[in-house]
């Protein structure tokens, strides 16, 4: 149904320890965002893409497609940063508009490049996590780092309900189409409104029913379930430590060289 959710279950890295995967993604993310170095961003982008596509077996085309999603936002925001509206022309571009100039500078373009690469590297870190680690594993990690129970339980129920409600919505949509609910624009919009109203009612009903079913299994206010992802092995921890150290060293070099 939601393709991005499906992919992690088929990833070859799915059964790798989720704590290590999360820690690696987070360390890389923090280093990328805090250094904002162009060279380092390229390195991390390459490393994460290698892990996700080559090691994890995610389809390359699909991966590129996912990477392209943030571009729309990046393009708009970088245009705003690179191009200025000023009374004095700058080094790269200057289009006179009346007594003003639409203009851009080299330093501005450099900033944009830095921004785009940092953003892409950061996104690649998150995609690595999303495309190799199923939601229940991520919840387990959150529990380990003492995220409040309320948030974890909400995430768990919401995640499950996304699919329950999508399924209901899909069936309602099909049955509307079968009865020509999309014959023209007006009917389509009306059908969509009705679908949403019914979906809300169904969601409330489902929630009540699920509460009864949980009560039937002695639910007492806290959702307790079995946690059993193995502890990370020494080898995994060592690998994580070495990779993180290398990354930190690279970050320091980049900072020293100023690239």
């Amino acid at each position, binding site marked *: 149904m939601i393709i991005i959710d499906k992919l992690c279950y088929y990833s070859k890295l799915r059964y790798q320890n989720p704590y290590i995967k999360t820690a690696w993604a987070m360390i890389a993310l923090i280093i990328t965002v805090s250094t904002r170095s162009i060279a380092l961003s390229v390195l991390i982008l390459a490393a994460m893409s290698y892990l996700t596509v080559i090691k994890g077996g995610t389809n390359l085309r699909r991966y590129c497609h996912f990477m392209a999603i943030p571009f729309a936002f990046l393009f708009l925001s970088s245009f705003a940063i690179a191009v200025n509206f000023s009374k004095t022309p700058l080094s790269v571009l200057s289009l006179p508009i009346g007594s003003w100039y639409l203009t851009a500078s080299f330093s501005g373009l450099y900033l944009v490049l830095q921004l785009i690469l940092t953003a892409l590297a950061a996104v690649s870190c998150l995609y690595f996590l999303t495309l190799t680690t199923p939601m229940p594993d991520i919840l387990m990690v959150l529990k380990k780092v003492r995220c409040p129970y309320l948030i974890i339980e909400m995430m768990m129920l919401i995640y499950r309900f996304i699919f329950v409600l999508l399924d209901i919505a899909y069936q309602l949509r099909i049955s509307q189409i079968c009865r020509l609910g999309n014959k023209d624009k007006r009917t389509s919009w009306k059908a969509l409104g009705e679908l949403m109203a019914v979906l809300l009612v169904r969601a409330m009903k489902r929630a009540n029913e699920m509460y009864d079913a949980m009560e039937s299994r002695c639910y007492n206010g806290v*959702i307790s379930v079995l946690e059993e992802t193995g502890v990370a092995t020494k080898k995994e921890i060592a690998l994580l430590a070495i990779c993180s150290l290398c990354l930190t060293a690279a970050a320091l070099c980049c900072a020293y060289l100023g690239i």
Partner: protein
Amino acid sequence: MEETIIKAENITFTYEDGTQALKGIDIEIKKGRKIAFLGANGSGKSTFFLCLNGIHQPSNGTLYYRAEPYHYKKDFLLKLRSKVGIVFQDPDRQLFSASVRQEISFGAMNLGLAIEEVKARVDRSIEDLEITAFQEKPTHFLSGGQKKQVAIADILVMDPEVIVLDEPAAALDPKHTTIVNHHIDQMAKKGITVLISTHDVDHAYAWADEVVLFHEGKIIKSGTPKTVFSDEKTLLATNLQKPSALRLFDDLCAKGLFDPSLPPPRNLEELEQYIHDISKRSTAL
């Protein structure tokens, strides 16, 4: 003397909107029995089931669990629900977790067992219900039949004394119906009291020790399958057909082909065996 595990005395239940779903139900449920509940949609079976584990509190009348009257305090309800489990008709109504193992562990965790014990029970339920092949899949990838297997494991893991299954075969293909029925038989063999609601008269007749007919919020007939399904007037009132094996047997008895003193066949296989025996006898003559 069989031990009574749940007793209902004249219970009534009215929904908030004024619908009177139960209009005075009296029943004694004996330990270790296999009981089939039949009746039209909306005849009160599901409401009655929800009364059994204290989700619904009857408007009038009393329920007893092993002679202890139900009271609706938290500790009693938790104890009751750990003993009386319900498998809901629609598994999507029951499954709340995306992980099969976590889903199954929920009930066992709530019993306050040691983690090792919970793990052992989850493993056993997964094996017993043949879930092993798809236990790593998220619940939203499973087929309806597989979800049903998980829904049953959800309850079985709590090791209850009574399991209530609300239309266990609804919306299942023949393969999964067979699987589910097989697991229900296994539960009964272990001594668990099994209550199912169904519309399948043939299955109820072949399987149950006791059949209960619901009609408009009342029990209009209960007893052994043979007595209930021989009462044609009541069957007609509830729009139920006579089980095919019994109907054919009665017809063949009327034609003088069978001896009516024979024990009536419980299913078509037994009837076939009777027919087979006749043809053997006639060839011997």
